[in-house]
């Protein structure tokens, strides 16, 4: 590809990032042609028809219907071709494959928390394997503000909104530490709200999974010159955790996986007295086989039981009553669960499929 133009882009570390670059570079040249079609004649006319003594301007040439139709129709066709290509790439950028590894992301001013299915929690370091699909289920803490998860080397970005889950996915082809920025303004520490996406080779990934010591790969792409963290004292203090270390020391696995934590939480909160885990009907609907399926509601609508639905049904049970359970009231849990607890509950419900 054109070397100089690619210099204006960061390293492309995934197939989608490469497809993104293809689109961008094609688009760049199409628009460059348009630029010259407009500005070329402007410069030429300006020189050729500069005022000269005795030469008058032409009284004609103030319209030309075929020309006007042409310069309306051709751009129309082209912009919709651009739109179509943009949509095709975008659709793949936002559709996570079903076999993705899931990691839960919680943002707050000014740091990132990554919660894994094995129950571990990492601050500002997101470990993923190379060449595997990874899906992030993201939210911002309820009492916090908007943030945005941005990885330039993957060309992906998604806002995190308090009170709802948003998703993003990727498959990184290049091991190394990739820079994660917060791209939605969030106050004092906005530019210091950084994380590293640590992409591990398969062998290291196995070590990491067992909770063993892992050598950290080098930084790649944007941010690789940074001495992990910024110079500004105020920003340094606003960071929730330090990033600098060359080796990730032992990170022993907790006793309970995320789903187990969720089950324990349900038992302690007494949820199980109304919701069964095996499909049998108690006072409330069973949680078995709920996740990812269409659920019939009492108002006649159906809805997909995804993270947002489960969260809403826990926080505000009256919002959507499952068909056949009219008149049953469950107390609302809005504001009573932390984001990590909510993630555990959802992971547990998901494990019941």
């Amino acid at each position, binding site marked *: 590809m054109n070397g100089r133009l690619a210099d204006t882009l960061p390293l492309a570390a995934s197939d989608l990032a490469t497809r993104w670059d293809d689109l961008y570079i094609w688009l760049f040249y199409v628009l460059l042609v348009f630029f010259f079609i407009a500005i070329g004649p402007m410069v030429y006319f300006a020189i050729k028809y500069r005022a000269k003594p005795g030469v008058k301007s032409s009284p004609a040439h103030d319209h030309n219907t075929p020309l006007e139709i042409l310069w309306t129709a051709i751009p129309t066709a082209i912009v919709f071709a651009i739109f179509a290509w943009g949509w095709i790439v975008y659709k793949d950028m936002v559709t996570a494959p079903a076999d993705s590894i899931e990691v839960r992301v919680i943002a707050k001013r000014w740091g990132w928390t990554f919660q894994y299915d094995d129950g571990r929690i990492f601050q500002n370091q997101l470990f993923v394997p190379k060449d595997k699909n990874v899906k992030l289920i993201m939210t911002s803490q309820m009492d916090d503000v908007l943030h945005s998860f941005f990885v330039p080397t993957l060309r992906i970005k998604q806002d995190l909104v308090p009170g709802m889950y948003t998703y993003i996915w990727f498959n990184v082809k290049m091991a190394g530490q990739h820079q994660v920025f917060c791209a939605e303004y969030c106050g004092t520490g906005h530019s210091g709200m950084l994380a590293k996406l640590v992409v591990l080779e398969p062998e290291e990934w196995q070590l990491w999974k067992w909770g063993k010591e892992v050598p950290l790969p080098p930084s790649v792409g944007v941010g690789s010159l940074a001495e992990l963290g910024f110079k500004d004292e105020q920003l340094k203090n606003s960071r929730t955790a330090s990033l600098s270390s060359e080796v990730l020391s032992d990170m022993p696995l907790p006793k309970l996986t995320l789903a187990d934590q969720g089950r324990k939480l349900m038992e302690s909160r007494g949820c199980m007295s109304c919701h069964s885990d095996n499909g049998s009907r108690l006072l409330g609907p069973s949680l078995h086989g709920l996740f990812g399926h269409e659920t019939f509601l009492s*108002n006649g609508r159906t809805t997909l039981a995804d993270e947002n639905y489960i969260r809403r049904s826990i926080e*505000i049970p*009256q*919002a959507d*009553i499952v068909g056949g359970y009219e008149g049953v009231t469950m*107390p*609302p849990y*809005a504001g009573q669960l932390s984001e990590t607890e909510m993630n555990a509950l959802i992971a547990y419900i998901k494990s019941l499929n």
Partner: protein
Amino acid sequence: MSSPHQSSSSVEHHVAHHFKDGEHEFLTAKQGMWLFLLQEVLFFSPLFVGYFIFRHMYYHDFHVAAQQLDWVMGAVNTVILISSSFTMARAVSNAQKGKREETVEALLFTILFAFGFLVVKYLEYSHKIHAGTLPGHFFHDAELLKAAPHAPLFFTFYFAMTGLHAIHVIGGIGILIWILMRARRGEFGPKYFTPVELTGLYWHFVDLVWIYLFPLLYLVG
């Protein structure tokens, strides 16, 4: 259209220098008023859009919360406002005919109706303050909160929408009083009744907003 013997215009109106004549000035002012009302429609629109969105999201809660409103009070206010629109229309047509006494009388009734509307509104508001069915953080009806956790949001919209409307009514009363005083001085007649006409348009708009608010908040819920 004009009946000279009835013309009681005692104060002569001067057409501004940039208009051809009184008619030209009148039509221009009227167009300006329509544009202003168009702006008003869009001013109210975020509240309507927001109400529809949240009503869709929290259908049950909004339904339960709306039961707290007294539809009889709402209906009384609807009748009051429609009556005031009628008297306002009378005021315009009387002003146009130069009937000073009748204009003043119709305006007086309009103002009285407007105050009547506000009295009913006051009763409703004070009942809600008493019951604690208030917007957002101020909501303190524990029972209702249990049955409908998003009732506070409903009352946010209730107070925002009816409150904004009430501000328009209060503003309207101010304008009506001003028009009333000018009418008493005999400023209006067949040649010049622009302020009465424009106030009429405004007042009908305020009435119309209520016609939408009443079913939306009191009945549909």
